[in-house]
């Protein structure tokens, strides 16, 4: 037994050789977050004439375990914007509760008639995500930013690499594979937005949530939806310029309806069956 505390609890030098301190020097590569742990799945969103609708389910998975079933993954940011996040839930909470909350409070300090709109919040989030990936310590999320901006619906996505992308129909995670084709069926391009009604858009989103529940093994039959609509323009005294009025309608704890399972009765599987 050696009396030096530094060698307590580690292999004997005479057997294993002296302790190799080299890893304590700063020259070795640093590794940060390796993987998401508690995760949320898809977020989907669709523009329509006069607004945007966005939805995400309430599940936080721990591997394949449905760990938490009451997680809100959509967040209203200011008056014009709703953000949705998939990926690591702890990073999502950091983004929502630390970064975005303090961003909005700082904006409220001024009380000068200015407010951060969807495009501003989107730029901020994509900068944060890109900054973190440059530190090789990414926030493990894909986010959608939906809102009303400059008289038009706004919808764009950003991911953990800082990749940014915009389209009238967007989905993250599994939704990118399963929901986007369905969304594009009703809204193939920016022109189609004008002829898409709010009701049809909501109906399409509901349909997508159902398909995702059928086919995404990390999804839940309970979800939240936010509908952001432009409500015209309010005149600002003195400047003569208009200030947009925006309405955000929330639907929480929605349970999937009109599922189709009955056909299972008629299905017969493998083997020589008689019943």
């Amino acid at each position: 037994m050696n009396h030096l505390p530094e060698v307590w609890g580690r292999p004997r030098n005479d057997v294993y050789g002296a302790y190799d301190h080299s890893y304590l020097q700063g020259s070795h590569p640093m590794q940060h977050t390796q993987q998401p742990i508690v995760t949320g799945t898809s977020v989907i969103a669709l523009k329509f004439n006069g607004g945007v609708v966005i939805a995400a389910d309430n599940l936080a998975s721990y591997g394949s375990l449905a760990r938490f079933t009451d997680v809100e993954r959509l967040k209203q940011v200011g008056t014009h914007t709703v953000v949705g996040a998939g990926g690591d839930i702890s990073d999502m909470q950091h983004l929502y509760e630390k970064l975005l909350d303090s961003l909005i409070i700082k904006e409220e300090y001024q009380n000068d008639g200015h407010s951060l709109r969807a495009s501003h919040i989107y730029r901020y989030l994509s900068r944060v995500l890109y900054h973190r990936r440059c530190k090789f310590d990414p926030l493990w999320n894909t986010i959608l930013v939906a809102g009303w901006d400059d008289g038009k619906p706004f919808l764009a996505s950003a991911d953990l690499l800082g990749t940014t992308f915009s389209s009238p129909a967007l989905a993250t995670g599994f939704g990118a594979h399963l929901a986007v084709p369905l969304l594009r069926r009703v809204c193939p391009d920016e022109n189609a937005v004008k002829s898409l009604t709010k009701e049809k858009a909501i109906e399409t989103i509901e349909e997508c949530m159902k398909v995702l529940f059928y086919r995404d093994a990390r999804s839940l039959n309970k979800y939240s939806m936010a509908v952001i609509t432009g409500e015209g323009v309010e005149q600002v005294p003195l400047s003569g310029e208009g200030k947009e009025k925006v309405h955000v309608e929330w639907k929480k704890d929605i349970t999937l309806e009109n599922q189709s399972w009955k056909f299972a009765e008629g299905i017969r599987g493998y083997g020589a069956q008689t019943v």
Partner: protein
Amino acid sequence: MTSIGTGYDLSNSVFSPDGRNFQVEYATKAVENGGTAIGIRCKDGVVLAVEKLIGSKLLVPGSNKRIAMVDRHVGLACSGLIPDARHFTSRARSEAASWRKFYHTPIPVSSLADRMGGYAQAYTLYSSVRPFGVTAIIAGMDEEGGPGLWMVEPSGVGWGYFGAATGRGRQAAKAELEKLPLPNITVKEAVKHAARIIYFAHDDNSKDKDFELEMTWVRHEKLATAESGEGIVKGWGKHEEVPKELVAEAEKLAKESMVEGGDDEEMEVEE
């Protein structure tokens, strides 16, 4: 001030032989020249009001706000050197933000006042800085304590109040505040009193100058519209400007009471 210029008043952080810190007292003088600011603590919230002196008719009316939001549930009104007030406010915001970051919850008003007292005090300790030429009234509403009203002076001293007044018209304002049955009134009643008191204090001290009345309140979001009951309302409040119609009404009543001439106790507030 009895003994100025004895040589002990030339540097901050120096005591005179009789144990006074003159630079702090002089900073208080700067406050006493400032526009009047008052705070009224009620059973369902807190009201802040300031007399914003208007130095020129070229100034944009309604701009150049004097009451600041420190956090969603806290407002801060200052009297004294305005740039110092901005610095002080910005520190208060940092304190509130760092509390939020650390504890995931808004800062209790008393804790904020405590920290700001500490900050002001630090500026009395060193000859390399000067004290703040500012007295700050901090108003807020939190979950444990309900409505809270604190006043922090250049020395770093901070007390809790039911009715607080500072600035040029503080004596007149204090006299009026003492007549109110605080804290057993509602913020809606207090708005009218606050307007009257600011008009009264202005009339008493800076009659020759123009001023704008600026008012904010902190109220509990859920009870903001409901009639408040008997006891003290608790919960996180929201700091916001008093609605324009209410300010206009309060100013109208205040002006009427000035015309009646001093006998303002007569003024009844119905609610």
